[in-house]
């Protein structure tokens, strides 16, 4: 029995990291109907910048984490200014926005390769003290709990922010209908820039937590989570924050259970993409999505 429990914990843990990555991804899609494919590169750079702060600037992780998250947010502003704002008024904006974000992702990855080198590196051993507990035959580490808590706080914080704060409501208004939002006096351009700031900050934070737990950061670490992030936001419903959180946990669990049941993980990714494929065809609005997505 405790193996199943252990797998459950593994699934919830990795699912919360997927969820944290996905809410930034889906936030931008919700507002602009465009996929920001540079998001995975921000995930990578967030982790590497935090590592640099801890190693070279000798900051404690509890200072480096918020600072690197902030820097990732600023990177988000750059992404918006360079890749999305200039294209907003073009007829094929969803298409060209996709391409410009791919271009930025390539540039960011080559910058990471150039600055931080190709080697896989990790946070110094004593960055964070890790206690390992054996509870009813199931092992949980303090780091796991801290990460799940931080992820949960960020997700809850974002949900509260969108529902109750003025800026949050403005973001939802722009997501609903940009022209009407403009009529109501919302400064749409700065709200969109602000959305990129939050989205990239969350993406960077997910990268730092991922690097911290798995002890492996490299310029191409964003690649494997990019496709899974895509599957999570489609599963959860494009543009829906609760969908991304629940989708992330569900996706993490499905990955872990596929391995547990089939005993081998070569089918793991195949299952993930087949599920994604099926959802797109049968229920493209996903679990919680509400956008009119399929027919014209």
């Amino acid at each position, binding site marked *: 029995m405790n193996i199943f429990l252990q797998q459950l914990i593994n699934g919830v843990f990795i699912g919360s990291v997927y969820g944290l990555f996905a809410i930034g991804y889906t936030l931008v899609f919700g507002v602009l109907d465009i996929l920001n494919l540079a998001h995975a590169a921000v995930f990578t750079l967030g982790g590497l910048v935090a590592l640099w702060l801890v190693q070279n600037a000798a900051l404690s992780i509890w200072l480096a984490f918020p600072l690197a998250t902030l820097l990732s947010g600023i990177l988000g502003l750059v992404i918006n200014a360079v890749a999305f704002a200039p294209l907003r008024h073009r007829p*094929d904006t969803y298409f060209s926005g996709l391409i410009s974000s791919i271009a930025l992702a390539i540039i960011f990855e080559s910058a990471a390769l*150039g600055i931080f080198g190709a080697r896989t590196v990790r946070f110094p051993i004593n960055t964070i003290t890790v206690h390992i507990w054996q509870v009813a035959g199931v092992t949980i580490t303090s780091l796991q709990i801290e990460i799940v808590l931080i992820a949960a706080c960020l997700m809850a914080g974002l949900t509260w922010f969108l529902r109750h704060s003025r800026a949050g409501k403005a973001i939802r208004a722009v997501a609903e209908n940009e022209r009407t939002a403009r009529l109501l006096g919302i400064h749409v351009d700065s709200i969109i820039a602000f959305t990129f700031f939050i989205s990239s900050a969350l993406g960077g934070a997910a990268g730092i937590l991922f690097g911290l737990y798995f002890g492996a950061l490299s310029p191409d670490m964003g690649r494997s989570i990019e496709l899974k992030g895509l599957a999570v936001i489609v599963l959860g419903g494009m543009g829906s924050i609760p969908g991304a959180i629940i989708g992330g946990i569900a996706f993490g669990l499905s990955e872990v259970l596929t391995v547990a049941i089939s005993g081998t993980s070569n089918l793991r990714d195949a299952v993930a993409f087949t599920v*994604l*494929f099926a959802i797109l*065809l049968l229920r493209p609005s996903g679990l919680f999505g509400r956008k009119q997505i*399929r027919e014209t």
Partner: protein
Amino acid sequence: MDLHHIFTQFYAVYGSLINFIGINSLLAISLYVTLSAGQLSLGNAAFAGIGGYTAGILTMYLNVPYMVALCAATLMSGAVAVVLGFPVLRLRGVFLAIATLAFGEVVRILAINLQITGGAEGLTPIPNKTQAWMIFTALALVGYFMAVLRRSRIGWSFASIREDETAAKAMGINTTWYKTLAFTIGAMIAGLAGAMSAHLNYIITPGEFGFSAAVQLLIYNIVGGTRIWYGPVLGAALLTALPEILRGIGVSAGPVRMGVNGFILLMVILFLPNGLVSLFSRRKD
């Protein structure tokens, strides 16, 4: 040194590069066809994989003649495209892209786990049958076909669907049928290119058909320009030769080349929306 020697010297060094330009141009056109009907598909790299594996298996295990293997590969990719097309082509825009991307990843994972496709090491040794003239004859024929298609009823229907699918329906265009046709023609050309490439490199590995390969085809189209069929060919030729050009200028191997690639794409999408081909095409924009 007489001209002949200079040419053989140039071809000896850059022969394989020229072949890759030809293959990548064919792959770029395969995506151009689908884009010309307004369908953003990221599955053409996977169709190239299907074509490559089909032809490779036929020539390696059943030593089927090369030309027959090419035709079989083209038809196989087309058949898979028709089956995949009907469910997938009801999706719009970025959702179609994600669905075809998921299909591409499933193909890649299957190729890794199946025995007949040679698993992770890839299918090898595939007899080296592809010659340069074959690639460029195919490219010329496909190019001619594209130019003529543009002026036929099919071409006008693709263009109408690309501009506005609803209006196209109201004009009597059976959009489902024509979208599937664009998707299938693209898949067949990709299958042909994949089969030729497999017989050029002795080997075909699953890694060549994943997400980044599909995105690369999209980049050829965007940089080249998707308004006219030889736009993507221009994009494919430039970006395939870029590493050699950069080496020639003395840009050291490593991240800088990758950065230059990304930078060119960004400049094109920001300042040259209709791609390089719009620089010297006479159409007033």
